[in-house]
């Protein structure tokens, strides 16, 4: 077992977990933050995307020990975070959500992009989202939604 301290969605967490757990398991099973999804479990689908120390990563690829002192953001932060809220609204308006399984990961990859690049080109959006698979939408609506969110964020500043 390992004692861990880290921050999730601006709240400090201190828990003791089995060392072989992945960040994905800690979020879903220990902290009951089930917005983060498990798809492939091998880094290929992006359903498990979270923002770890400012960068979007697959939480199925991160082991317990690696999150000591980390700052983590999950889709549950949508309740309070203005950037995620604008993205969420844009996804709804553009028809970028069907079954919704990929959506938490898409929003977090998109947020990580907008944080470092507030006015991305279409190519940059596609690049940032290339690790997030969607079986339903065909991606055009998703790319449009990120563009719309970027415009709205620029206007709101």
């Amino acid at each position: 077992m390992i004692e861990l301290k880290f921050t999730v969605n601006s709240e400090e967490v201190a828990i003791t977990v089995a060392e072989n757990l992945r960040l994905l398991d800690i979020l879903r099973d220990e902290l009951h933050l089930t917005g983060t999804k498990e798809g492939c479990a091998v880094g290929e689908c992006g359903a498990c995307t979270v923002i770890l120390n400012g960068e979007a990563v697959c939480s199925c690829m991160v082991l317990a020990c690696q999150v000591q002192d980390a700052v983590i953001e999950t889709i549950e932060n949508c309740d309070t975070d203005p950037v995620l809220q604008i993205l969420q609204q844009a996804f709804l308006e553009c028809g970028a959500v069907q079954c919704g399984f990929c959506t938490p990961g898409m929003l977090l990859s998109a947020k990580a992009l907008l944080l470092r690049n507030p006015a991305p080109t279409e190519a940059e959006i596609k690049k940032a989202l290339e690790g997030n698979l969607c079986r339903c939408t065909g991606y055009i609506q998703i790319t449009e939604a990120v563009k719309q969110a970027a415009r709205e964020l620029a206007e709101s500043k």
Partner: protein
Amino acid sequence: MKFHKPQTLPECLCLLGKLKDPWLLAGGTDINVQIRHQLNVKEDVVFINHLPELNFIKKEENSLIIGATATIKDISGSELIKKECPFLADSLADFASPLISNLATIAGNIANSSPTADTVPLLLVLEAALVLSSCRGHRTIALKDFYTSYKHNVRQTDEMITSIIIPLLPPDSYTAHYVKIGSRRALTIAKAALALLKRQDEFRIAAGSLSEYPKRLKNVEEYLQNSKKIVKKHLFAALDEDVYPISDFRSEAAYRLQVTRNYLLKFTR
């Protein structure tokens, strides 16, 4: 599995000397897949990603020195590398996806010893060297001498890669390309890969996914260096001596060879 988290590099090296066959864990993007599929899982896992001594990118005299845990994202986004070795930064743009390149480390890619490792053909044409460290001391070996057979290398179990040294050439003194052939552009593992560097009359060519580990194509290089006019038949004969493409779940041997021929011709014309 037992997990270890040394706090300093000397502590880590000392620990490696004591454990029987430790499994270093950097970004975890290969190891987590192995754990998932229960493939060659080892008992003692040693975390190294948090060690500050290993995370750097710097220039020293005429070399770039990259710390073991620099990620693919750190390298492709590094202003220093974009300036001093744009070929390396640009060629890593098609590595996995951002979600993986934000975690994947350069030493993990090299040490994993996969024939498909994307950094290796690039580093081979740049004639990079590895620093291997243990509690016994440090040694520097050329990357070309690191691999011994499929998934095997000369690293001893108490050693780890601590840095990668890339001798710098003036960026305008050579041209270089990296082609990675996969099923698609994004998030793909190479079916075949070629790194080509041309500098005056010197050709440096390395291939990935075409033999048991990535290699320089010595016969092709020699042929190109010594031929005024390139004869297809002779070029392909040299290639046949350098590579041993196989058929597996990713591709067919015949396809691998054909695309490699095509790209070689394209770049040497």
